[in-house]
């Protein structure tokens, strides 16, 4: 275990723990805050993997905007508080399905990528390369995504209008 791995392990464990608390919290606002923790940990992981641009974008967008959105949503919908109120009848089945998914995924990758296989070697910063890649090879998807964002924006406005507008 290198230092990288220790750091990573810490971030990962905190993140998974926070995620678990996220899906089991009985207070919606607590759930939102746990979401913040998870997203931050993920951002930290990105840094460790020397994807600094993606990391900052993650923090900016996710933690900065999306979580706010969530909080607004929670606020506007007056969610009920309490354990039974937030979890539904089929918790058991859901747990089973989640475990099945985990098992399946682990089964799938552990053979292709063995424990003593190649390691990730974080290189220097990659922001320049990302920028280059986006505006050289992936211009078209980039523009498409901007259209997507525009459409989402307009769509959200349209959806949340009151009905009596002609």
């Amino acid at each position, binding site marked *: 275990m290198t230092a990288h791995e220790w750091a990573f392990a810490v971030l990962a464990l905190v993140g998974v723990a926070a995620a678990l608390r996220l899906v089991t919290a009985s207070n919606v606002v607590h759930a939102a805050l746990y979401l913040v923790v998870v997203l931050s940990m993920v951002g930290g992981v990105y840094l460790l993997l020397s994807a600094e641009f993606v990391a900052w974008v993650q923090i900016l967008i996710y933690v900065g905007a999306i979580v706010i959105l969530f909080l607004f949503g929670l606020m506007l919908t007056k969610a009920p508080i309490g354990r039974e109120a937030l979890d*539904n009848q*089929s918790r058991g*089945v*859901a747990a089973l*399905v989640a475990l*099945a*998914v985990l098992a*399946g*995924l682990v*089964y*799938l990758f552990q053979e292709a990528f063995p424990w003593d296989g190649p390691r990730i070697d974080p290189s220097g910063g990659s922001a320049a390369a990302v920028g280059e890649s986006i505006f050289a090879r992936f211009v078209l998807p980039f523009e498409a995504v901007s259209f997507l964002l525009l459409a989402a924006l307009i769509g959200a406005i349209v959806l949340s209008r009151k009905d009596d507008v002609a």
Partner: protein
Amino acid sequence: MTAAETSEALATPNWFVDHTWVIVLLPFVSAALTLFLGKRTPGKGPVYGILAVGTGLVMSLGVLLRFVQHGGGTYEGSIDWFRVGGFHLEAGQLVDGLTAVMLVVVTGVSLCVHVYSLGYMHGDARYTWFYVALSLFTGAMLNVVVANNLFQLLVGWEVMGFCSYVLIGHWWEEHENSSSAIKAFITTRIGDVPFLFGIFALVFATGFETSNILEIGELVEGGGASRALVATAALLLFAGSIGKSAQFPLHVWLPDAMAGPTPVSALIHAATMVAAGVYLVGRMFAVFAAADPFVLQTVSVIAGITAFGAATMAVVQDDVKRVLAYSTISQLAYMVAGLSLGPEGVTAGFFHLFTHAFFKALLFLGAGSVIHAVHSNSMREMGGLRRPMPVTFWTFLIGSAALAGIPPLAGFWSKDELLAGASHGHPVLFVTLLVTAVLTAFYMARAVMLTFFGEYRGHGHPHEAPVSMTGPLVALAGASLSVGFLGAPQLGAPFGQWVFFEQPHEAAFVPWVAALSTAGALAAIAVGVALYRRVREPDPVLRLGPVSTLLVRKYLMDDLYWKGLIRPIRDPLAAAVYWTNQTVLDGIVNGAATLAKAVAGLVHAFDLRVVDGAVNAAANTAGFTGGLLRYIQSGNVQRYAAFLFTGVIVLAVIFTRV
């Protein structure tokens, strides 16, 4: 002359003999012409028949001339009709003296009847058809006379039977007439079946090779067939004669056949068709001669019974035509009796046939003239007709005298020859025939007295017949006066040179027989004249108590047949046929319908239960399954998502690892 010399004599062709078959064909042609063109011909059709038969008569005289010049002999000519296996069926002509004589008789009487019917049937609704049937009949009889093999003869025989049925029932609107026609047909049929078997027996004797008459004769004479077979065949053939010539016990149809028009009675039931039975015996005499003597004895017995019985029944008749009918039966029996005497009697029998044809036809036509004048057959309503109808009276008188056997008329010579033959060794037959001759004279005298003498008892206006009717009467009277001499022994009896069996026949004249018969006849006539000079009520012959009753009721034979034979067969038969129709046939039809209905019901049920059932079951299954499957739609999105994730993981594992 031997057969060989005769054949040489005939080898120089006589055109008439060669073309005898034309005589047969002419009436058939005229029948067809009358049938198709008759109604459109002026005069409505008799002209074809008269021309055909007239020409036939001329040609027949030509044929007879041949035999007159050269005596007897046989000429045969034929064509192959077809061969089946070993059997050879031919169509041909066999011409000897007998044939020639018969040809003259048939064409002569037929011509007289054709001419007579111009007047008698004038205005009849089916005038043209009458002449068609007359021509057809004449053709068939000529075929019988000329045929050289038994099957051809049979064809003519049967066609004659059919024409007789048609002509007797000419006025079929009256039920009595159609019944008489059926009676005639069926009774002669009963004789025809044994006749057919007789033919089969003879054909069998030839080994199924031929039915040629001459060949059969040679076979039988040469002993090529067993005695039993020959005797059986002879009896079977004679059965056909019994039917056709109205001998006991199949005589019952002839009196009732008088329901037909008188010209028909004259032609068919006096001169020709009924003579065909006699002709058959004569033509096939070789078979009879070669058979056991008991065959000819049987024939003799039947002839005797018939002759006597019929004469007795003729005595009590009121209908003039019935007197003549019974007389015909009696005279036919005479002819058969003559033939039954053996080879010597053949000439005598046929001579009587020859003469009888002329005077019996004359008598019938004369009776027809009377009936035509007074519109009634009953002698009770006649009387004193000799003054208004002189020609009819004198010709009828000549005919009656001929029948009674008064010399020198025709009947005397022929009857006398028969009696002479019977007097040699056939005592019972001789006495029977003699008594019958006496009775014959008596009943003819009675008939003449009742019809032509005394006062007129009827309601009409009697007048003489037209020339078309009296002409034939005169012609036949002339024949009755003259033809007898052809068989007179004193004049050499040329008839015996033409018609004979094996040897030309020299007629013998037995004076005491002649004297006895003449005396008896004259005595009977005297009694008849005395009894009927004045009208007596009731008729003297009906005052004989039970004898009269027996005679009037025809010896109860009609009753016997009706009650004993016809009703027991007809009634159960009709009931059985009706039952079969109602139960079996209708049952089958109804059963088929019921079956069809049942099948339809089955099909319907099948359609409903199976076919519709299958369709409905498919629909129900789909509905049922859908009803179960819809529970998957819980509306709960997370449930759907759970399935989704599970499925994805499973598929991912499968696709990458398997």
